[in-house]
């Protein structure tokens, strides 16, 4: 019977093309608005590293001002760590993998006389950064632990940078002048664009990954400039770069990989002991308050999904509801126009259930058509957001297959929900009253 109902639905839709188009348009508008905001929220709140997001932990230590907490909440913690903590925790090596990191920048001088120097973004990290975050390599490999400690001038290039400077060829072993220093290329990444950019949300959770990756300790060696946010609760003791590094200013992120709950508990114990040691040395004057947050907890804590995006999501659902209410009205009108046919079908043996299914299939077809048109509108909406907000939103405005399925499912469900009352009304049309009146 389903194919019969489908055929009847097509005939019915063709019979009232304007009414049918209005319903499809109403659903399409609602679905389009909803899917635009759902997609943005979905990308914002997606797990960027699902295979191990519960094993990677962001480290926070309360090294802040004894008289004021880092944020409004009394127990809020600084969102980054100081150079002292970054280097001390790395030296302690208490986790399976660990990497302190920071963002920076320098001028690249590409080889070749015609190529112009340009500013490139740099991620300073330890070698564990790559396996810890499952960063894929196109050529070469990460630098070694020894090269980390020896502060060797080695660099890993993003694929885009390698394409730009070396034309996409295997550049491992080549030299590259960065910030006036000669570096050796040890690896080239495959396209890698975690969304959100979870490992450092302080510089923007939806920014592009960096163009270059180099050993963290070169920050001190080459006096590389600070990138991202730098916050201090007291001014550094002294002038210059060394004084900044030894200050209480926070500009560094610390991630550890801990395989299970025991390892997590042990690492937290270690952090508390470390804080107690620092307290004994006159630092960490606030109550001991350290925290490990896994990837999704950290995204939540940092409010990666912005409040206004959530509000937009709810508003778009309200808009969908309004569109569905309009659809209910249109369906009522359409089904009332079919009263004579419904009466006839009832007379010749259709049960209420048969008619309910017939009209539900028709409603579903309208919903699917609305969903498909809504997908088109959502696509335009996402392009609009991308155009409006530029690079910031570029990475948030693409739909994957899941979103397409969600759009169609949402259209189908919402149209069926909208169709229930009109369908119920249609089924309850008294046949006797309609058969004389045709």
């Amino acid at each position, binding site marked *: 019977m389903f194919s019969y109902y489908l055929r009847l639905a097509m005939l019915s839709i063709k019979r009232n093309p304007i009414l049918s188009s209005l319903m499809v348009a109403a659903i399409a508008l609602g679905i389009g608005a909803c899917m635009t905001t759902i997609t943005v929220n979905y990308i914002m709140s997606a797990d960027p590293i699902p295979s191990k997001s519960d094993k990677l932990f962001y480290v926070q230590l309360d090294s802040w001002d004894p008289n004021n907490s880092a944020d409004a909440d009394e127990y809020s913690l600084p969102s980054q760590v100081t150079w002292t903590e970054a280097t001390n925790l790395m030296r302690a090596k208490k986790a399976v993998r660990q990497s302190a990191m920071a963002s920076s920048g320098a001028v690249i001088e590409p080889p070749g006389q015609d190529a112009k120097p340009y500013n490139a973004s740099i991620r300073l990290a330890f070698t564990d950064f790559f396996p810890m975050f499952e960063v894929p390599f196109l050529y070469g490999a990460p630098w070694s632990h020894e090269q980390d400690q020896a502060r060797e001038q080695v660099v890993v290039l993003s694929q885009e940078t390698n394409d730009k400077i070396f034309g996409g060829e295997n550049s491992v072993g080549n030299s590259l002048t960065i910030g006036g220093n000669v570096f050796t290329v040890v690896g080239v990444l495959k396209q890698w664009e975690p969304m959100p950019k979870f490992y450092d949300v302080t510089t923007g959770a939806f920014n592009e990954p960096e163009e270059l990756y180099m050993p963290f300790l070169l920050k001190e060696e080459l006096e590389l400039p600070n990138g991202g946010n730098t916050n201090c609760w007291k001014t550094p003791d002294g002038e210059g770069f060394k004084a900044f590094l030894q200050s209480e200013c926070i500009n560094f992120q610390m991630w550890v990989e801990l395989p299970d709950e025991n390892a997590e508990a042990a690492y937290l114990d270690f952090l508390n002991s470390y804080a107690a040691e620092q307290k004994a040395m006159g630092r960490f004057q606030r109550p001991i308050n350290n925290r490990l947050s896994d990837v999704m907890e950290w995204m939540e804590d940092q409010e990666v999904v912005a409040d206004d995006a959530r509000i937009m999501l709810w508003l778009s659902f309200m808009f969908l509801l309004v569109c569905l209410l309009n659809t209910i009205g249109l369906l009522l009108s359409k089904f009332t126009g079919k009263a004579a046919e419904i*009466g006839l079908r009832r*007379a010749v043996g259709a049960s209420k259930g048969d008619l309910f299914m017939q009209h539900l299939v028709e409603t579903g077809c309208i919903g699917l058509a609305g969903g498909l048109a809504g997908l088109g509108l959502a696509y335009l909406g996402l392009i609009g957001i991308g155009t409006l907000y530029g690079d910031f939103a570029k990475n948030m405005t693409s739909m994957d297959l899941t979103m397409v399925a969600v759009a169609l499912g949402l259209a189908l469900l919402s149209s069926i929900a909208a169709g229930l009352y009109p369908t119920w009304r249609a089924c309850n049309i008294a046949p006797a009253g309609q058969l004389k009146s045709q």
Partner: protein
Amino acid sequence: MLTMNNITKVFRTDLVQTYALREFNLNVGEGEFVAVTGPSGSGKTTFLNIAGLLETFDGGSYSLDGEDVSHLNDKARSRFRNEKIGFIFQSFNLIPDLNLFDNVDVPLRYRGFNSSERKRRIEQSLEMVGLANRMKHLPSQLSGGQQQRVAIARALAGEPRFLLADEPTGNLDTKMAHSVMDLLKDINEKGTTIVMVTHDPSLAKQAKRNIYVRDGRVSELHEVAAFAEEESQTTAKASNG
């Protein structure tokens, strides 16, 4: 075949209640061709709707084909209508978007026949009404008489034991009306029981039995001539008044 005992049907509003049928008693035997006549508002159509299980009633009992149908639920009534009753309406009630084949197919779809059985029955019933060569035509491409023939084919396709016709020639000219009546008589000759509501005494005369309904009751059986006379008196009074 059809037995109604003391059937009462009341239409109620906030202020009044109107008896459409009152202690309505009727027996129709297997193979009969009964014409139901009576003035407008006498309850003929209400009777037909109740007989066809399209409406419920408020009192009395009704059995059809040996089964008490007074208290069937909606699904069972639908099934009963589909299997045992064929309907012919004054305004044909064809679905305009469907061609003749698909119009005749409508009751068969709800019967659960497979496609080859449906095709056989559709072709056979359209053949019977002389429209087998126009299966792919839409109702709008046919004359009124032809449309009513399609409606008859639709009613017959399910091979019902009982055919209910409500003013089947009411929308047709005399020639077409006679042609449709001839068809109904043929169908009756083949064994299908027919109950037909009509205003037209000349058509009623062609039935095997006439029943006269007045004020919701079955009045005595009238001779056709007496009924015709009464009808003309009613018409004259109406025009004088």
